[in-house]
């Protein structure tokens, strides 16, 4: 057995952190071929035991791109190494996005460009940030809002945010508006706020939305999860199970990470175990109450108390936009099921109307709640964000 040093190379990308999943095929000199899954750290090289012979490494990025490298290793090789890497160097501020998300397909019928961005915070005046032209940073109350634009892409990166969850409004050149419930605040492993980045790309199909949390532990799992690569997401999820449990335990203080933690545990089929599930309901976001209601609806014992299910779902509605799009869908389905018991319940009917509007307006290309609808619909869903004055 020989130690093979494997490195992921991303030239010119600063601050890249996280993990990607690959498969390593090893054809030993005796002709026997083995295959195993390997997890590569984007920052540091790893060492893998291989048998002398042929080695083929395939790494599938969340974008769907597949990188590969192969090498013949002899028994005499002292310190064999293998490198896989990105072919192109992305802009520094898009480094993580370039690795973790699908690139935009250029097209003639591109969507409208973001003209400006408005951040709506509870108890504070809306903060208006201009987009387009050149990159700029705005500091407000210890929080940095960085807007970057390049060709078809506009990005807002929020750093140092610890206040209650804001809503971000994107205003486009054609007059359209979109409203995002960003996963803010997001506290990392050490309790410090992690940066959260919203990205809007003009593409052949209109605009493409993406939300990234610069949390090296959670972000790769969520990226693989979002694009449907559950095998890779589960592989990484097994490595962060403890962090996911700790995040759920800390739901009251760090609600967005708690919901992500729940998704990770669900990937691992651990979501039905433990006494921590009711902690989700303590999460101040709508997501917590909705997920706990969904858990009750899954079991006969839970369903035996429809009043509690109803209360949790209405509480979810009362708390406003869920951070995760899946929770909006779960709210609608849960309310439909409760409404089938009591079709004349006016509170449930009103909440269901709202949830239908919400799901109908929610973009389907990101796992975060990102609304794209006409002003009237946005006004019904988020009346706290009125249309801008003419």
């Amino acid at each position: 057995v020989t130690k093979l040093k494997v490195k992921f190379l991303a030239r010119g990308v600063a601050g890249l952190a996280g993990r990607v999943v690959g498969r390593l095929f090893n054809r030993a000199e005796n002709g026997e071929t083995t295959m195993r899954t390997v997890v590569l750290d984007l920052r540091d090289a790893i060492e893998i035991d291989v048998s002398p012979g042929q080695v083929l490494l395939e790494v599938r990025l969340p974008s769907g791109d597949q990188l590969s490298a192969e090498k013949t290793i002899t028994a005499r090789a002292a310190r064999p190494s293998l490198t896989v890497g990105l072919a192109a160097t992305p802009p520094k501020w898009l480094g993580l996005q370039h690795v973790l998300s699908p690139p935009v397909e250029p097209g003639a019928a591109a969507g409208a460009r973001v003209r400006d961005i408005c951040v709506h915070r509870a108890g504070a005046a809306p903060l208006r940030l201009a987009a387009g032209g050149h990159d700029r940073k705005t500091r407000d109350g210890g929080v940095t809002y960085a807007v970057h634009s390049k060709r078809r892409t506009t990005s807002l990166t929020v750093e140092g945010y610890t206040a209650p969850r804001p809503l971000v409004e994107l205003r486009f050149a054609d007059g359209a508006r979109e409203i995002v419930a960003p996963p803010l605040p997001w506290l990392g492993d050490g309790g410090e706020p992690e940066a959260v980045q919203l990205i809007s790309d003009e593409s052949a199909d209109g605009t493409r939305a993406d939300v990234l949390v610069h949390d090296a532990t959670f972000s790769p799992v969520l990226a693989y999860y979002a694009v449907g690569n559950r095998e890779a997401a589960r592989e990484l999820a097994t490595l962060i199970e403890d962090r996911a449990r700790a995040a759920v335990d800390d739901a009251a203080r760090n609600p967005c990470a708690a919901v992500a933690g729940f998704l990770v545990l669900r990937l691992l089929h651990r979501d039905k175990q433990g006494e921590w599930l009711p902690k989700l309901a303590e999460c101040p976001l709508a997501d917590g109450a909705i997920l706990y209601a969904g858990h009750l609806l899954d079991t006969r014992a839970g369903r035996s108390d429809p009043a509690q299910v109803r209360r949790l779902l209405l509480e979810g509605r009362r708390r406003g936009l869920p951070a995760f799009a899946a929770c909006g869908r779960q709210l609608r389905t849960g309310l439909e099921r409760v409404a089938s018991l009591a079709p004349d319940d006016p509170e449930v009917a009103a909440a269901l109307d709202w949830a239908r509007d919400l799901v109908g307006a929610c973009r389907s290309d990101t796992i975060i709640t990102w609304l794209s609808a006409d002003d009237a619909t946005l006004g019904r869903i988020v009346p706290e964000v009125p249309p801008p004055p003419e």
Partner: protein
Amino acid sequence: VKAAFAVWRGRVNAREEDTALFFFSGHGVERNQWQGLLLEGFDATKADPFEDVINLLGFKAGMDGCLARKQCFLVDACRSTPPELANLDMRSDPGVRLIAAQYDLPTDVVRDVAFIRAAGARQVAWGVADQPSRFTGALLRALRGAGCSRLDDRWEVRTDTLVCHLNTLLKYESEAHKLAVQNVRGPGDDSGGFVLHVPARPLVPVVVACVPDSDTARARFEIKRGGESVCKRDALAGNWELELVLDEYDVFAIVDGPPRQKRILAHPTICAVRL
């Protein structure tokens, strides 16, 4: 459709351990998270055009009331809003659901849903004249073996890894044949992953070409397994695309000079070899 659904529902409502498989290939329309499947007879100018439209998410939600706890929805339909349907109002969540959501479920076993759609948001799912559509073509290749993942010593097509394999197949097809991009999306919120199919002899797509590309058309190719010839191709334009049983092979190309040779492991999704 309603009558056929009633029969099918009877079959998938028999046992928890059953798998319900729903496959649709046809026209679809989507706005944000509302997606409708257009049935024969759909007419946007009718008083209620949605009476011939399946409300896909409503249907999927209602299917939780069926006893089969493994459910796979394969939806080969566009997710764009064509201009001629731009005026349709989908805000009231319209369309036929076929089965309504119920508070109670027939079992406590949590449903495992693979919800796999042929295109990304606002994308078109492309058809091919006189052939299966691109998604369905890729799905058939995946089920033959290209979509296999290995668990211990067994190769099986699983719902939680199928999307990756389908995207790799479609991406290769787009790049090799200069076709539009099409991204499969799934498997959805409630997917744990289950075995959809176990091919007896998995067949893997193999693509053989030369370096430089200009040599490919002049090359004579041969593939051997254990020293025995498996297949050959004379000089022809274009890469050699074929399917081989999952195994190790030696690939030979004769252009000018001595034969070029490479040993390959033909494994899912696609095995590309350049000589």
